[in-house]
């Protein structure tokens, strides 16, 4: 009788979920390109100390706001520092700001959203009201207040940005959970005697994350730019250490005299954002067993 049952199935592919996801990811050229971009910048950030580049804080009075040249491949900034070097060193702060803040927002926001959507009742009421209040506050104001409260440093700025970006994840997650929790497999999980924690972890969480992934990859951009605003207010990366955002902030004042000062950090942010979004798309597809 098994002859019939095996009739209509695809040839067996036996591999672990992780390897399977990686194989699918590898086959996705766009995602791979995105990964290369991120890895490239990450390597730059890590290798900054050993790369043969100028000191990012070394000034040169004789080379102020110089356009790209053989000596300074990307030109120099308003006090004669080498832009290439600053761009590379700046990737440390900017990548960290982008990744860590989003990680904070996701790691805190998603569980809260899960709890809120799953348990409902007064917990949900409370969380929803507070989230709404948070959302209603202008993002930058919240970030400024938090950063000011926590004290000025890059890591506090990341926490502040992460916390300010968090409510949207709570809301997104909650909405998804409301849809997923009525699925049969959730009831199935309860019927085999699983506790709420296990159900949330293994049944609900994996099924709510696609839009969260989209939002997270978008928030990377917001976070990198927000870091700039905070450092401008003296609450993020402190001068003379570079970050892409603060480089842009300075470049703003020399838009007509030294346009290159804005172009490089802008392009770097653009590439990283593209990278994260491509990887996000690829990851979403790769982790979804239903996608071929």
């Amino acid at each position, binding site marked *: *009788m098994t002859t019939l049952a095996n009739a209509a199935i695809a040839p067996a592919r036996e591999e672990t979920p992780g390897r399977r996801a990686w194989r699918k990811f590898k086959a996705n050229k766009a995602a791979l390109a995105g990964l290369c971009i991120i890895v490239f910048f990450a390597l730059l950030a890590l290798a900054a100390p050993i790369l043969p580049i100028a000191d990012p804080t070394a000034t040169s009075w004789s080379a102020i706001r110089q356009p790209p040249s053989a000596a300074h491949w990307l030109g120099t900034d308003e006090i004669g520092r080498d832009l290439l070097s600053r761009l590379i060193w700046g990737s440390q702060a900017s990548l960290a700001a982008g990744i860590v803040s989003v990680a904070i927002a996701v790691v805190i926001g998603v569980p809260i959203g899960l709890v809120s959507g799953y348990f409902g009742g007064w917990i949900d009421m409370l969380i929803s009201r507070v989230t709404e209040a948070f959302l209603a506050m202008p993002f930058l104001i919240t970030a400024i207040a938090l950063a000011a409260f926590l004290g000025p440093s890059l890591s506090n700025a990341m926490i502040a940005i992460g916390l300010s970006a968090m409510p949207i994840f709570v809301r997104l997650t909650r909405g998804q959970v409301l849809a997923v929790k009525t699925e049969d*497999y959730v009831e199935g999980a309860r019927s085999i005697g699983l506790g709420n924690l296990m159900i949330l972890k293994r049944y609900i969480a994996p099924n709510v994350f696609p839009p969260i992934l989209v939002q997270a990859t978008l928030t990377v951009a917001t976070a990198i730019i927000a870091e700039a605003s905070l450092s401008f207010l003296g609450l993020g990366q402190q001068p003379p250490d570079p970050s892409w955002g603060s480089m842009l902030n300075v470049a703003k004042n020399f838009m007509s005299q030294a346009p290159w000062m804005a172009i490089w950090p802008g392009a770097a942010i653009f590439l990283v954002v593209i990278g994260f979004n491509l990887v996000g798309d690829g990851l979403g597809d790769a982790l979804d067993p239903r996608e071929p």
Partner: protein
Amino acid sequence: MPEQPRPHPAAEPVLSVRDLAVSFRTADAWRPVVNNVSFDIGPRETVAIVGESGSGKSVTSLAIMRLLAKGSARIEGEVLLNGRNLLALSEERMRDVRGNDIAMIFQEPMTSLNPTFTIGRQIAETLLRHRRMSATQAKAESIELLEKVRIPNARGRIKDYPHQFSGGMRQRVMIAMALASKPQLLIADEPTTALDVTIQGQILDLIKTLQEEEDMSVLFITHDMGVVAEIAERTLVMYRGDVVESGPTEDIFHRGRQPYTRALIEAVPRLGSMSGHDWPLRFPIVDIETGQVSAPTEVAGTLDAAGTPILSVRNLVTRFDIRSGFFQRKTEAVHAVENVSFDLAQGETLALVGESGCGKSTTGRSIMRLVEPCGGEVQLDGYDVLKLGPGDLRRMRRSVQMIFQDPFASLNPRMSVGQAISEPFLAHRLGTRSQARERTADLLERVGLSAEMMRRYPHEFSGGQRQRISIARALALEPKVIVADESVSALDVSIKAQVCNLLLDLQESLGISFLFISHDMAVVERVSHRVAVMYLGEIVEIGPRAAVFGNPQHAYTKKLIAAVPVPDPARRGIKRNLAVDELKNPIRPRGYQPPKRRYREVAPGHFVQEG
């Protein structure tokens, strides 16, 4: 394939399919899915395509309509509509054919209608597109069409949205939509599979009537031989992408040559075939290669009726509050389960039957406390179920497990089946991971799958296999009772037979008791020891299987039995004339006191509700 004589040699065929082949693009190659399919459909003729799930029936119909995605599917051969090759038409011209010359109804009435448009608009769309009517004309015509498919109060309902209709009514809306442009050919792709028997009966009646009224040809796709016998003049049997046999339905039924055809026919449960058998009977299994039919064996001696029942339900009541108004006061309640009592002995199968929405699932879920009942008493394997705290409740669930109606929906799509099956084992800390793996492998083998399938995901299995996976998961905890909620209703015949046999095997070897929830009377007759009939939340009749089927007392029981399709082509054209009524909802105002019910004992153990 031998050339078949045409039933209407005089008439030119409306549709003529020649050497149709379809392949899908896979990572590295084109995978053929349908090969060399050829057939004709004459005017006013009904042709059925049968075959198990995945045999290529839907793909064939979609290929005819050219609805397969261009990049990923390749269609070869010829599809001639009145002599015109559809495969050669431009996309623009093809759109004039779709919904106009050929219309289509799909399998899933719940999802095939756009949830955000009124049904009036969805019907009118076809009229506006193909019959160039004005909006007012289209509206009038839509109402007429809805009346034609017997939707009560059609004028009032065209402004309603799909979710406001029951499944059966939605399918009727789909049919109305398909009829809108008076097509020459209607393709119905499993239009009744998802519906319960009484509604299925109504829909089949409707298609037959309309076909006469409208002069259309019908291509009817199904895996249910009972339905085929009722509706089709000619039948094609498909197996793994090939047409293995075709001919007049009578021939197929009585003189089918292919073992596969025989297997399909043998697998059809026939109502009344159980007279003379005392115990549940396995379905016969046909070896597809040789055509040999194994004699079905009875499942004897599992029943321990004398001992204390493993499950005892007394006066169970479950209601769902409906809140409304500004302060969300509870104003009404769905009396989903009302005063239900029964016992289930060790090794016994009690079937719970009734139409959609009558409270069968809620009964099962209440027993497991997946919903909180409002009252009553449930004794299960020594647990007083309704009084358990969270920890005990979880322990209790080792004794009772549930197999869900929809195996696909009840498996987490992002969890491999290995994980899914070992989950309960690990959650209850019954052993280490490697033990869990062993056990999973063992369970998979036991339900007729292989241990290598552990790493696959639910969507990579066929419906029947998924249902086996659900069963394997339910077995992981070695429960004493299994609530099987419509666990075979959505499966095609051959697989339905396998799964039923599997359940019976398990009962025999492990002594499991089943609460078998189903609306399929024929299956119920085959597998159960006793039967309880539910209607609007209450049990209206309960008794030994032979008594209930042999001597049905309650009017509703009789209606259910009448709705079962009869797999006998000779009865084609006979309509049941079932009343086209809407499903009743057991919604009552708050404070409603259900009347006291009394039961009459017709025969020993056979009770029927009075009044």
